[in-house]
């Protein structure tokens, strides 16, 4: 079984682009075309920004992005932080029919994530929040 490829960096917005470059590189290596890769990158972006914003509050901590290519059908991307239990998938779906006055300024991130990947799971394991994105090859 191939060893997972991963990148571990501090949960800091200054590292967001480094995470995204890594993700894009892995996707292109795996044969994804640019237009599909950018959608998966967007999904990861949303989840990474969530972790960066909420996982560690004022303390420092790391985020791990891991790629698993063990399945013949799906590519797995894991986003892992060691913050307090937090499942961003439990957020309420936004109401897309509201007009400018009524649309709240937040709430779209997870919704976009779901639209850009094939499956999305949250688990809590070993004091870590683990978000697994699954993308069809």
């Amino acid at each position: 079984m191939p060893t997972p490829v991963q990148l571990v960096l501090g949960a800091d917005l200054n590292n967001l682009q480094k995470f995204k470059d890594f993700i894009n590189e892995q996707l292109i290596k795996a044969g994804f075309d640019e237009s599909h890769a950018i959608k998966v990158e967007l999904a990861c972006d949303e989840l990474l920004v969530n972790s960066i914003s909420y996982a560690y509050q004022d303390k420092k901590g790391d985020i791990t992005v891991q790629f698993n290519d063990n399945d013949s059908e799906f590519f797995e991307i894991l986003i892992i932080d060691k913050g307090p239990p937090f499942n961003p998938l439990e957020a309420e779906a936004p109401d897309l029919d509201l007009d400018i006055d009524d649309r709240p300024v937040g709430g779209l991130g997870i919704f976009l994530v779901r639209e850009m990947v094939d499956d999305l799971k949250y688990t809590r394991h070993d004091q870590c929040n683990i978000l697994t994105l699954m993308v069809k090859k």
Partner: protein
Amino acid sequence: MEITVNQKDDFTVMAVAGRMDAVTAPQFEAAFKERMTGGANKFVIDLSQLDYISSAGLRSMLVMAKSLKSTAGVSVLCGLKDVVQEVFKISGFNSIFTICATVEDALQAG
């Protein structure tokens, strides 16, 4: 991300190039606020060179739209392409913004 600002008739045309995400969206908001503080109330946002937008970017667009609504101002977006166009569609933002193909169309529509 690069923002270029021009005046066309009584419109402030802001062309945004590159990517709008959590890191760069504040730059757009600041540029917009600066123009609004300077008295600008009619905007065309040219996204023909924008390759990517995340929810942070959408949020900035919404903040802009809400600010302009409160001053009876106008904003028209144009040039949306590829994933940016798709994100606007998926999020329903294509129905809360006036979106045109080109800057010329946007100037007419605004």
